[in-house]
């Protein structure tokens, strides 16, 4: 545990400098832990796991300004993963009876699984719904692997506009994902699948307070 904490913390702090290589390693290690954690949690929905891994990674990234150097990375990430999982469970009104608490940060980091399954929701497709100012920078920087400078030249945008475009695009992407799922509250009366709109009891207590 402590070893994982120390390594992830080192990578994240470097990554926030920002050091893109360290940050990428942080995300990669994190994704393996998240995958193992979510696979266990969503044992009956294995094909949703990768979606949620991606959504959680995006949330970790978009909320990286909420990390404070004096708190354990494991606790921070666990809280984000737990929030995303609960949000997902509520929105999808999954019936799975799960009585085990989601309260142990250690558990998230006890295992890791680097074998990604195919995500069901295609973020690439979602990306295409973004406005050009955000979509183009993301596509060039990421899909073509171009630098900010090259992207700026190709798109005719300024370098800072490219950076802002990537940044805003990632936020917008997270918002699109959020809006694809029905909001937990409004969904509950009618949105129940499989005959029940009830989230597992443990889940309701932990987020509905």
């Amino acid at each position, binding site marked *: 545990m402590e070893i994982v904490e120390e390594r992830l913390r080192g990578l994240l702090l470097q990554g*926030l400098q920002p050091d893109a290589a360290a*940050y990428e390693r942080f995300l990669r290690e994190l994704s393996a832990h998240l995958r193992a954690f979510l696979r266990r949690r969503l044992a009956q929905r294995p094909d949703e796991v*990768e979606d949620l891994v991606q959504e959680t990674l*995006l949330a970790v*990234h978009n909320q990286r300004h909420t990390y404070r150097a004096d708190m354990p990375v494991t606790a921070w990430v666990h809280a984000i993963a737990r929030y995303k999982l609960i949000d997902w469970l509520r929105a999808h009104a999954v019936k799975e009876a799960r009585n085990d608490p989601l309260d142990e*940060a250690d558990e998230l980091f006890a295992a890791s699984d680097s074998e990604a399954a195919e995500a069901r929701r295609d973020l690439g497709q979602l990306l295409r719904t973004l406005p050009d100012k955000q979509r183009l920078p993301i596509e060039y920087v*990421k*899909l073509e692997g171009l630098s900010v400078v090259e992207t700026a030249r190709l798109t005719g945008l300024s370098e800072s506009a490219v950076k802002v475009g990537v940044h805003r695009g990632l936020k917008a992407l997270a918002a699109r994902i959020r809006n694809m799922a029905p909001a937990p509250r409004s969904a509950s009366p009618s949105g129940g699948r499989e005959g029940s709109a009830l989230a597992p009891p443990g889940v309701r207590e932990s987020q509905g307070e």
Partner: protein
Amino acid sequence: MKTDELIQLLAADERPVSATAIEQRFAVAAAAGVAGAAVLMLSLFGLRPDLRATMALPMFWGKLVFAAALAAAGLVLLRRMARPGLAIGHAPLLLAAPPAVLWALALIALSQAPAAERVPLILGSTWRSCPFNIAALSVPAFVAGFWALRGAAPTRLAWTGAGAGLLAGALGALVYALHCPEMAAPFLAVWYLAGMAIPTALGAMLGPRLLRW
């Protein structure tokens, strides 16, 4: 898109983030909330005409200190609630202290007053409007506080919404105190808190809807 590709994409977004981004947003929100409340107060109610004379009375400052202490405690609390995985620590004690002191003062005042004067001490002359005026003045800080929190990642949305409502109520009360003619601790102990309870309850209701991320 594969997860690996997503990771590369996220790593390519290398805009530096500020470690105090949340505090900055709260500072802006609190300032905007107070400024908005001041504008509303001046245009709806006006300063109390004897403000200068009142400034010599300890209770005038007591009101301000009470509201400011609550607002400060609310900020301490929200600052922690805005970050995933951070325990709220002793913030609830800070939050409980100002009302506890005020209630103690109110009980002392009531116990020393003759029986016939107790009800007037509690009701003052503005009890009907006071809570609603405070709630009205809390609107700018309420909006600003929710804006600030939408740039953060609270995980207990109803509680966080309540915290933002309480902060807004405290800032509203802080500004309302410049208009309010009441000076008795028993009045403040009931009606000021009732005024703050309105945005607090509203915040708890709206939190789960507006603060999702």
